[in-house]
């Protein structure tokens, strides 16, 4: 399981750089009396920092912490990934750390550890969002408080590897999303999702993630 550690990291980096930019524009030797505002990347969360503040790493950390504390208070659902993963295990994506250092696949040359972390975090976060939808009758728009996990704990028996396959009941070849929509409409009794609906995309991500490592076997009954 991976904690969503990248978000505070990014915020810290931004807060740090904002402070540094301000500092660079002033001569270090003679701070102007008064204070300045340091803002987070959302351009709303801000703290006042006295110009007298010593420009040390420790002080920078304090400013970043103050910003994060404010942001967290405004975003109580910030730990939704950790919360969802604690309740419902989601299979993590392929570990790509073995390609770190190999060239040409990244915009800037060799693949870095950070590239790999971003890929993993983003892929995982999307599957985790799918888990949240999968386990919530409310998110699925069920009129009868039914969610996918009632028949498919941990996405068991969803067999995404068997699609596409012809479904006579649908009168056509069904993709995984067609079966998801069938279930949403009938057992769940909700409204069908558009194929590019973020919830549909996330549901597919979660179901496929849980079946990681199983060989594709389209058409299988």
């Amino acid at each position: 399981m991976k904690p969503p550690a990248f978000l505070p990291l990014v915020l810290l980096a931004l807060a740090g750089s904002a402070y540094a930019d301000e500092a660079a524009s002033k001569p270090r030797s003679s701070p102007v009396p008064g204070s300045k505002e340091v803002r987070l990347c959302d351009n709303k969360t801000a703290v006042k920092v006295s110009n007298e503040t010593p420009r040390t790493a420790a002080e920078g950390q304090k400013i970043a912490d103050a910003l994060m504390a404010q942001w967290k208070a405004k975003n109580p659902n910030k730990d939704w990934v950790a919360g969802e993963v604690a309740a419902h295990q989601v299979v993590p994506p392929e570990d790509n750390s073995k390609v770190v250092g190999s060239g040409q696949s990244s915009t800037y040359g060799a693949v870095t550890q950070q590239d790999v972390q971003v890929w993993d975090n983003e892929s995982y976060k999307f599957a985790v969002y799918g888990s949240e939808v999968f386990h919530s009758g409310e998110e699925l728009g069920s009129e009868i408080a039914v969610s996918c996990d009632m028949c498919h704990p941990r996405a068991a028996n969803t067999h995404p590897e068997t699609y596409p396959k012809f479904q006579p009941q649908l009168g056509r070849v069904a993709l995984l999303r067609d079966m998801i929509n069938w279930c949403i409409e009938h057992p769940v009794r909700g409204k069908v999702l558009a194929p590019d609906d973020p919830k549909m995309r996330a549901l597919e991500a979660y179901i496929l993630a849980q079946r990681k490592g199983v060989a594709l076997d389209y058409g299988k009954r």
Partner: protein
Amino acid sequence: MNDNNIPHIKSAETRYLEEREALFRGLQRLDRRGFFRVSGGATAAAIAAGVGFPFHSFLPINVAYADASGGSQGFTFAYISDSHLYARKTNERFVRQLLRAVDDVNSLDPQPDFVLYGGDLAQLGRKEELDLGAQILKALKAPVRMMVGEHDWYFDMGRHWNALFGPETYSFDHKGVHFVVLMSVQEKDFWTARGLSPAERMHTVAGLDNALQSAFEVGTPQREWLKKDLERVPASTPLIVFSHSPLYKLYRPWNFWTDDAEDVQAILQRFDRVTVLHGHTHQVLTNRIGNIQFHGMLSTAWPWPYAPQGLPALTVQMNRPNPFNPADGLGDGSATVHPDGLVDKLYNLWNRNPTQVKANYLSSGGKSDIPAAPKLASY
């Protein structure tokens, strides 16, 4: 000219012969039905003579069993389980499905001696859910024996369930068999430290694959009660135990599991014949550990898939439910208790042929009376 070629004109003789044939066919049916009605009172005598009548079929089959050493007379009881009712206005589908099971059981002729309700009457343990369930179960003609499930318990820790149905742990004797009903879904306190509200606690337990909850167990106080309850019961008395969770360890992530299963099994070990019926797993599930035979029960709400690991070798899976076929994989059922105290378990799958798992299948270690294999097993 042959009468058959002119369907609307038949000779008096033909009409007479047809009517006579119809009358005799009717009499035959009437006879058989009437016989079964009468045999309701005489089931004991009939079974003692070595003839058992399975439910859901009018064809008698002969089963010769050894004399009851424990003194049981042989009888049947029905079961309904895992209805997961919401309030009626929230979800009327689960309500209709429970009503269907009640209809099934009420139409059994002869009536079972009693009906076991296998737990999880409610979905979120609310008063209106339990009240609705209690009201529906009142329509059953046979007496009802209640068992509690985790969905009934973790909103108010059993308060309303107890008010409606009495204590969750009890025992009784019926026709020479000692019955024990356990509350096997005790969880260690995972909610206080997390500061969960009763609704949040219930919601956590209600998710089968929710890892925040702890494992089910019978617990020390109840095991002590069980030891005491069984003290006075001789080992030759057939024992039937009802528990909501399977009293063995199958698959922990879905709580197809009882954490102190070995301790409970040890208490049951000295008895010659023990059968455990459990709910929670919503599927045909069969196991045997030593002298103990285990059977699952079907749900009336939704089916569960088979766990990815830990399936007992003796389980012959039911066909995987077809999502295009509403209520597939659901049902109710009954148990025929033979004079020797062992149980033939019938799974009355609503959309499929009923499946019977016989005591002899388990006693023989899966060598005889093998149930039909599924045509579509799990992926």
